[in-house]
Structures are given as structure tokens and as C-alpha cells.
């Protein structure tokens, strides 16, 4: 027969889990109910620039950050004790710990003042700087999760190290890496602070990354604090869309994980 303490432990852990989940569930409930009613009332034409902007800004950030971050993460995993790796890891940690609004200000001082205009590109660069340390870390962790025997298998055949890393290690780590990347992208897509001083926002539908660009988080920020039912509806609808984007990327990540589990039997 189990002792009382054996039953109390799991019960306490379960209670702590529920207490931790509760604020998130309440927030999701609030956003969903307000957002769904806003979906019916909102002027979708006014929201379209933000939807397109978020897609383009996030895509641009991925184009910058994913190749660079994956390459850097591979280097960190393969050559962990070189001076360059130590410096890169430190810089990555600093960048990852820097508040995203500071990154926004930095990109404003670096790109926006230099080019003399707010632009989608500078917004993408700011988001990329937020995304980069995440990609570096998940790539390093993903590669290190590949068993050593698998990483060594091509090396003992006489493959050069770069080929072994790209063809075997990266390939073996790709499923886990894809999942982590999707989650990282979902986090970055909802960032408003890096865009305040860079993409700025734009009430007109524009796919020109050289011009100021709207984004869903900027809509939440600007319209959420603006008076008027129309602005409030846009803010709630934008908030719900961001939640849906995160949910979709999360579902995609789980689908990748399930497919890999099925393949591994």
C-alpha cells in the first residue's frame, strides 16, 4: 500500500501545474472571446496591412536569422572549445538576454537613421536579431542531441568533417531542430517592441519592404490604447490572430514530431 506522502507528492505537483496554467488559460479565454466577437465586427480591410506585414517581416527575419543561426549553432556544437565559439556563445547570450526594445533602438540608430527612413527591412533585421540567438541555441542543442556514434559514423568512412556535419549530423538533428525553429519563429512573430522604432507601422497595404510596414503586434499596441470601438476591435482581432499563428506553428511542430516518431517506429 502506498504511503500518504507518495500520494501527496503527485497531488502537489498537479496543483502547481494547474496554478501555473491558470493565468495562461484565463488569458487565452479572454483573448478568444473578445477576439472572436471582434472578428465579426472588425474591418478586415484595415487589418490586412498588418497581416501581410507580419508575414513579410517574419519571413524576412527568418531569411536573415535562420541560415546564419543554424551555421553558428553547428559551429558551436562541432567546435565547442575554440576561442571563436566561446566569444560567439557569450555574444549570443548577451543578445538573447537583451530586451527586444533595446534591439529595436539599436537597429533604429544603426539602420533607420543611416537610411533616413523607417522600413520593413529594418523591422526584419530587428526581429532577426531577436531570433538569431534562439536559432543558435536550438541548433547547438539539436546537434548535441544526435548520438556521438551517429556523428562519428561518416567520419570513420573518411568523409571530411564539413560533409559529415551537413549530410549526417544536421540531417539527423533536423526533426528536433524544425520543431524548435517553429516555436522560436512563433515567439518572434508576436514581438512588437523591436518594430516600434524600425517598421513603425503603416495604415496602407504595402508589400514594399523599403517602406514603413504594419504588423499585428503593432496593431495590438497602437489600436489597443486608442479610443473607439473600431480600433479596439482591430486590436482584439490582431491579438487573436497572433495566438492563432502561435497555435498553428505549435501544431505544425507537433506534426513534425509525430511524423518522426512514426518513422522511427
Amino acid at each position, binding site marked *: 500500500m502506498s504511503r500518504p506522502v507518495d500520494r501527496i507528492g503527485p497531488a502537489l505537483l498537479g496543483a502547481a501545474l494547474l496554478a501555473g496554467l491558470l493565468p495562461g488559460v484565463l488569458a487565452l479565454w479572454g483573448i478568444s472571446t473578445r477576439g472572436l466577437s471582434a472578428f465579426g465586427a472588425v474591418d478586415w480591410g484595415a487589418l490586412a496591412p498588418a497581416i501581410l506585414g507580419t508575414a513579410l517581416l517574419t519571413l524576412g527575419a527568418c531569411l536573415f536569422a535562420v541560415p546564419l543561426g543554424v551555421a553558428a549553432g553547428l559551429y558551436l556544437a562541432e567546435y565547442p572549445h575554440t576561442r571563436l565559439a566561446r566569444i560567439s556563445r557569450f555574444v549570443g547570450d548577451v543578445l538573447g538576454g537583451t530586451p527586444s526594445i533595446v534591439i529595436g533602438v539599436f537597429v533604429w540608430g544603426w539602420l533607420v537613421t543611416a537610411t533616413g527612413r523607417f522600413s520593413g527591412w529594418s523591422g526584419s533585421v530587428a526581429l532577426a536579431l531577436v531570433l538569431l540567438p534562439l536559432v543558435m541555441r536550438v541548433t547547438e542543442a539539436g546537434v548535441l542531441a544526435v548520438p556521438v556514434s*551517429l556523428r*562519428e559514423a561518416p567520419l570513420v568512412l573518411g568523409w571530411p568533417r564539413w560533409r559529415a556535419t551537413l549530410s549526417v549530423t544536421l540531417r539527423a538533428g533536423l526533426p528536433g531542430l524544425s520543431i524548435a525553429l517553429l516555436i522560436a519563429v512563433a515567439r518572434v512573430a508576436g514581438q512588437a517592441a523591436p518594430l516600434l522604432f524600425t517598421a513603425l507601422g503603416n495604415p496602407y497595404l504595402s508589400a514594399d519592404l523599403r517602406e514603413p510596414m504594419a504588423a499585428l503586434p503593432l496593431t495590438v499596441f497602437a489600436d489597443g490604447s486608442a479610443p473607439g470601438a473600431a480600433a479596439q476591435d482591430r486590436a482584439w482581432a490582431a491579438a487573436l490572430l497572433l495566438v492563432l499563428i502561435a497555435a498553428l506553428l505549435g501544431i505544425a511542430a507537433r506534426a513534425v514530431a509525430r511524423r518522426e516518431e512514426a518513422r522511427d517506429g
Partner: protein
Amino acid sequence: MGECGLSAERVSAMFGKRTVVRDVSLAFQPRQLHAVVGPPQSGKSTFLRTLNRMHELTVGAWMTGQVRLDGREVYAPDVDPAALRRRVGMVLPQASVLPGLDVRGNVAAALPHGLDRARQAQEVERALVRAGVWEEVKDRLAADPRRLGEGLRQRLCLARALAAGPDVLLLDEPTAAIDPGSGFKFEEALYALRNELCLVLVTHDPRQAARIADTTTFLWLGAVVESAPSRQFFTRPVEARTEAWLTGRSA
């Protein structure tokens, strides 16, 4: 192929400040199977990995001494470790198949570039025959090798190592993770290969060495205790420590 002159001279191997192989000098003859035996943590695998420069890939690992292949120092600055590993092949303890490749692709991955399709198929078949696995996989060449049993996968790894065309094949506890039946099949393949190649087998199982090795070396705490032809090693060991280990009187 198979005419190697591999030798280790006063090889010591370290991880940071910890020495795991001490002053080992051994010469390996072509067309022979040489076993390196000893209890766990005796430095067998580390020593083996100094022979094809896999040791240096571990963070903090370093070595002293010399390893020569056909009289040439393999740690010379102008030696390409990848080219060395094509001549001094290796089978690892775990049967690791290359992801995204079928059975045929896993073996073909070790072949030199530029072979036409017919030649490639011929070489894959030859490697699988030499590893004693052709009959079992000839109808499953397009299958996912992860679906094969562990023992069959390990012999597939042996075939892959052979496809690279090495003169020397290092075997690091190749049967430690597979069932005894598969282990015997692996041993049969090695026994046949010893007529073609220089084989260096690391094993913690003295019975395996007694069954198939021509010569046997006993390593204890990283140092050579005794090295002799297997018949002599297992029937008339010179060193008391060898006899104690073989008879199970010491750990």
C-alpha cells in the same frame, strides 16, 4: 589491398590531465587479426582511436608517441585525417546507419565518388558479400536500414566500412551491443576477412579473441601487460596478471 604496415610506438593518450593509454608500442601485421583485450576502462578503445586519429576529435583529448602507416607518421602535419581514415577504416560499437539512406545507399556512401551506377551496384554487392550479409539483405536493398535487426545493422556497418576499401580495419567492441547469435555471424565474417586485411579488434571478451584472433594483446590500466600469438596467450600466458584476468581472479 591488405598490405599494411601499421605500428604504434610509445603511444600515450590523454583526456586533459588524465592519462588513459601509457606508452603502448605494438605492430600489426597484414592478413592477421590482432585482438586487444582487457577489462572495461583499460584504454583499449582510446588506443584504437589513436590509430586513425579519431581520438583527436574528442574535446580535451591529446596524445604523444608515433603511429606509422607504411612507415609514414600519420600525425604528420601534411596528413589529411579523412584520407587516413579511408585507409584505416573503423567499425564503431553502435550500429549507426546514415539517416535518409536505404540499405544500398548506406553502403554506397563509403564508395569513392565518380563510380557509374553499374560499378556502384557491383561494389555494394561485393562489400555485402564480404561482410557475410548479402543473402540476408539482397531483397531488401531499398529498405530503411533502421528496420533491420541490431545484429544485421552492425554487419551492414561492417560492409560499409569494407566498401571504403581500407587496408586496415579497426573494430571497436563491434559485438558488444548485439545478441550472441548475431555476434557469432559477425565473428565468422571477421574470420574470413583476416585473409584479406589487417584487422585490429578491441574486445572485453577474451573468449572472442581466443576464437578468432591470431595475436592477442592484454591491456591493463592503459599499459600493455602481455602480447603474444593467441594460442600461446590463452594456453601459456607469461604474466601472472594475464593469467589472473583470464581465469577471472581479478576484475
